[in-house]
């Protein structure tokens, strides 16, 4: 099967800091990829490169058979990007904002209106369509971001913490949405810290730490024992695991008591 995303030797640095270190990765179409890693591991940078937002990197990245550096507009028109709690043009109404997004993708007014109405209705935002977005809650903003990322019916969807700020019902809705998109043959690249969701929805999980892929496989392949869940796998691979001690130290710090780790160092 020809991979829909192919990354070869991808490296990215900001000044002296290496954010991505020679990443190689192939993604087949129609899969949900769970892309996880600790803060600062390079997840968002990978997604921004795959969406064509960051273009100064080393290595080769092809999306749908096109090298992003040479076909950035073509790639951008076929992928959807849903960032985490991004800022929106909040002085616009919801309708104005989504119409603007639709026009950037050259959708007709009819298509924009039809899709906007259906999507906002599903998210329970239809009654807010003519309100300015500066009065919206975090969860409403996230729903707008999801709607605007899917409005042009992309083939690949990149989601960077799409569940931020959403209430429990909306989380269930988005999880169902992921399965529905997969059923339509779309590829979903899903970055998140919510391990239980990633474990449940992903066909394949990729764990990145310090700019390098340290684990890659299905949840079954990543498990070392039957009792492991993704959170435990994540913790085992990316930290030394002394969380109880660290939590005690934090609590002790608030009470002006000596902490264990400092005592140990002394």
């Amino acid at each position, binding site marked *: 099967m020809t991979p829909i995303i192919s990354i070869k030797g991808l490296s990215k640095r900001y000044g002296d800091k290496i954010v991505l270190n020679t990443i190689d990765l192939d993604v087949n179409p129609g899969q949900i990829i769970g892309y996880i890693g600790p803060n600062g591991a390079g997840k968002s940078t990978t997604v921004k490169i795959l969406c064509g937002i960051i273009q100064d990197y080393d290595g080769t990245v092809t999306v749908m058979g096109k090298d992003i550096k040479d076909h950035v507009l073509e790639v951008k028109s076929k992928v959807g990007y849903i960032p985490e709690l991004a800022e*929106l043009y909040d*002085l616009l109404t919801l309708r104005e904002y989504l119409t603007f997004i639709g026009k*950037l993708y050259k959708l007709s007014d009819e298509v924009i209106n039809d899709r906007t109405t259906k999507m906002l209705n599903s998210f329970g935002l239809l009654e807010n369509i003519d309100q300015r977005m500066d009065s919206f809650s975090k969860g409403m903003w996230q729903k707008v971001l999801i709607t605007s990322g899917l409005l042009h019916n992309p083939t690949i969807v990149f989601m960077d913490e799409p569940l931020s700020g959403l209430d429990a019902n909306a989380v269930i809705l988005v999880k169902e949405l992921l399965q529905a998109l997969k059923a339509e043959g779309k590829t979903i690249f899903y970055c998140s810290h919510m391990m239980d969701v990633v474990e449940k929805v992903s066909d394949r999980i990729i764990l990145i730490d310090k700019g390098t892929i340290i684990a890659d496989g299905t949840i079954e392949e990543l498990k070392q024992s039957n009792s492991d869940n993704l959170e435990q796998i994540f913790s085992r691979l990316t930290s030394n695991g002394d969380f109880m001690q660290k939590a005690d130290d934090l609590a002790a710090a608030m009470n002006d008591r000596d902490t264990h780790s400092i005592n140990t160092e002394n």
Partner: protein
Amino acid sequence: MNKLFLWLAMLPAPLWRILGADTDQLTAILNMRLMIDNRRPIGFGRRQAQKKDVKHGTLIHTFMFTMMGCFYAIPVYVISDRVISMALYFTLLLLMITLTLITDFSNALFDNRDKYTLFPRPINDRTLVLAKLLHVFIYVLRMVIPMSLAAWASLAYLDGWRSALLFPLPLILMVFMGLFAVNGVYLIILKFVKAERFKDVISYFQVISSVIFFAIVYLRPQQMFSFDTNSTLRAADYQWVHFVPTYWLATYWSLIGYPLTLGGSMLLAVLGLAVPLVCIYILVRWLAPEFSRKIRY
């Protein structure tokens, strides 16, 4: 009014297409920017802490700029030497526009929200740069047109139609100078600080510019030149004005018969035409793309 400006900006649409812009996207971006400008809280060079619902921002701005224009046009009413009065007028207006743009417009140019809404969309760099330039141009026109009405009316009343007809040309050239100066200052600041800290530096600049602005208001134009309108000027004492770009613009009035009391020749008028055009060419060709690249990441 926004529709009129949008129509004007898109009038040369075939030219924008030749330059590589996507005119549908350009129209959509400009329309969005103007809508936001119209709703943005009112503030001249001040960042607003409070969010206030503004419905007709453009109309309120227009009224305030017209009132301010009456103040800036004082040299035109009180100084009978037309070349000197226009040099002072253009200096004041250019200073005001440049300072306002540097402090106020950074909010629009460094819109962090573009990162999430525009950069992931299939928009080419030329469309983005052109949208930014046209937005700046409309923004300046919205300020300059009402601000110049008083001077324009005064010239028509005091001097007649020839002077009034001449006025828009140096005015547009002055706008080009202002845009060049603003972009120049932005790029210089960006050379020393990162894009994220840019707004902080602009805040310091805001304080400094306020001091300069009030100094100018208190010194008053006549005292800067330390003469009264009835005395005779010695051109030799004011040779330095030949190096002031706004004086070059004022020398246009010598073309319709007003004397060059402070000296100078046709060469200054040629400079007054050539320099702003070169400035705007450099701005479009190099500065704006460079600026856009720097704030992108």
